C-alpha cells in the first residue's frame, strides 16, 4: 500500500503542475487517472510535454536525463513511473 500511497501523492503533485499548464483545458483535469493519456485524452499539444517534464523536475526536485525524457510515454502512469525511477536513482547514488 505504501507504493499506492506514494503513487497517489505523486499524482496529486502532478495535477498541481498540470493546472499551471495553460494549454490544458482545466475541465480535462477532472477525473484524471493513471491511464489518462496526455495527448489523446487531455488534448495536450505534444510540444507541451517538455514543459510538463520541466515543471515536474522543479516540483519534485529531481533531474531527468535526456534519455528519460526521450523514452517517456504519454500516459499519466508513464510520468509517475519515471518520477519514482528517478527518485530511486537519486537515492541510490
Amino acid at each position, binding site marked *: 500500500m505504501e507504493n499506492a500511497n506514494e503513487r497517489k501523492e505523486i499524482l496529486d503533485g502532478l495535477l498541481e503542475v498540470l493546472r499551471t499548464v495553460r494549454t490544458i483545458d482545466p475541465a480535462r483535469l477532472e477525473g484524471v487517472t493513471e491511464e489518462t493519456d496526455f495527448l489523446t485524452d487531455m488534448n495536450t499539444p505534444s*510540444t507541451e510535454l517538455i514543459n510538463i517534464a*520541466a515543471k515536474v523536475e522543479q516540483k519534485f526536485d529531481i533531474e531527468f536525463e535526456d534519455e528519460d525524457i526521450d523514452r517517456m510515454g504519454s500516459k499519466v502512469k508513464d510520468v509517475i513511473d519515471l518520477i519514482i525511477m528517478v527518485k530511486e536513482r537519486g537515492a541510490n547514488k
Partner: protein
Amino acid sequence: MNVKGRKVAIVGMSGTFPTCADIDEFDRKLFAGESLIREWPRAMQFQKQVRSVVSGYVTEAETNLEPVYPLPDVDWPETYIDNLGRIPDINLATADLGSIWAMLGAQECIKMAGWSKEETESEQTGVVIASGGGGTAVARYPWHAFFELGKKTRMAGSHVVDRAMSYREAANVSCLIKNKGVCESIISACATGLGNIGYAYRLIKFGLQDRAITGGVEGTALETFIGFDAMQVLSKGFAPSESSRPFDVNRNGFVCSFGAGVVALEEYEMAKARGANILAVIDEYFNNSDGDGNMFYPSYDGQKRLWKGLLAGGNIKPDVVKVHGTATPVGDIIELVSVVDALGEDGYHICAPKSQFGHMLGAAGSVELITALLMLKNQKVLLNKNSDTLNTELENFQKKPDWEGPVKPAAEYRHLISQDIIEKEINQIVCLNYGFGGTNSAISISKDN
C-alpha cells in the same frame, strides 16, 4: 500588379495606446491636446544606468493583463493572464506582450468591421502584422536559465520560439482568428507599422486577398529602450509632456514609446455592398530605400523619390501631411523640406503626432495612421505640441555647396506647423514613416465620397 477598378477601404481600427483604456479615450485625449508621455518607473529603477527616463509606455495592468513570473524575485514575465478573459489561455501561452496586444486589436477590428465568422476564417482573409524591435522581456528567462543557471534547454520551456520569433504577432493573430489566407510579417524598423499596412493594401489591390488584419506593434520593454538610450538619441532634460518636440529648435531626441495599432482592410466594393462603415479609402502606397549606404542618416534624395513615387499613383493633393517627425536633430528638417519640395509652401498642414505620444517604433506607422483616420473623422488637424521655436537659421546641411533643396530656415514654414488644433475640411491625408536601413514609406488615404 494593380487590378483596374479595385480599391481598398479601411473598415476597422483599434490599438493599445499609452494612458488610454481604448481608442475612444485616445481620440479624446489627442484632440484635447494632451500628452501621453510620462516618467517611466521601469527606467527610473535603473536611473544610474540610463540617460532618458520618459516614455509613452503601457503597463500590463493598464491592459488588464497579469504577468506570470518563472522564478521568485524576478521581474521578467514568462507568460500572461488575461484578467478580462478576452484571449483564450491556449493563445496566451504562445504570446509575448506585443502579440497579446495584436490579438486584442484584431478582435476589436473584426468587431468594428462587422466581419462574419465565415468572412474572418476565409481563404481570402490575410494577416500582415509585426513589431519592429528585437527586445522582448519573455526572452530573458530562457537566456537566464541556460547561460546563468546552466540548466537544460527544456527548463526554458517549449514556447521560447513562438513567443520571441520575428512574425510572432502575425502567427498569434492568425491562430486566434483562424484565417486561411496569407499570414506574414513585414519588418522594416520604424516603418514597420506602415509597411505592413502597405503590403496588406497591395495584397487586396492586386486581387490576392479580399480582407486583411494588419498593423504594427511594439510591446513595452526596457530591453528595447536600452539600445536607443545607448545611442544617445532619446530626449533628455524636459518635463515628460514637453519631451517630444518635433521641429522645435531645442529638440534633442525622440521619446521611446510603446503601443499597438491594428486596422482592418477590405476590398472597397465588398465593404460597400455589405454596408460597412468605411473609415477611409487608401489612394496609394509607395515605399523605397535611400540607396546611399547610410544606416541611420535620413536622405533628402530618398524622400524626394518617395514623394515622386506616391504622387505618380494618382490624384494626390493632401490637406494634411502626417509626418514621421521624431524630434531628432537632423530628421525633422530634412523631412520638412522634402514635403515642401513635393507640395509647395502652402495649401496643407503638417502634423507630427509623436509630439503627443512619442515614437512607438514598430507601432509608429500604424498608430499614426489611426491618428490620421481620427483627423478625417473629426475634421481637425492635430497640433504639433512643443514646436515652440522654429530655427530662424539655415540647417548645416542646407549650407553645403551640393545642397539642391529649399534654402529657407524652418521658421519660414511656421504657417504649415501649427501649435494649435485646426478645424478645416480634410479630404485627404498623406502619412510618412521611415526606418533604420534607409527604408521610406508613404500612404495616402481619403474620405469615402
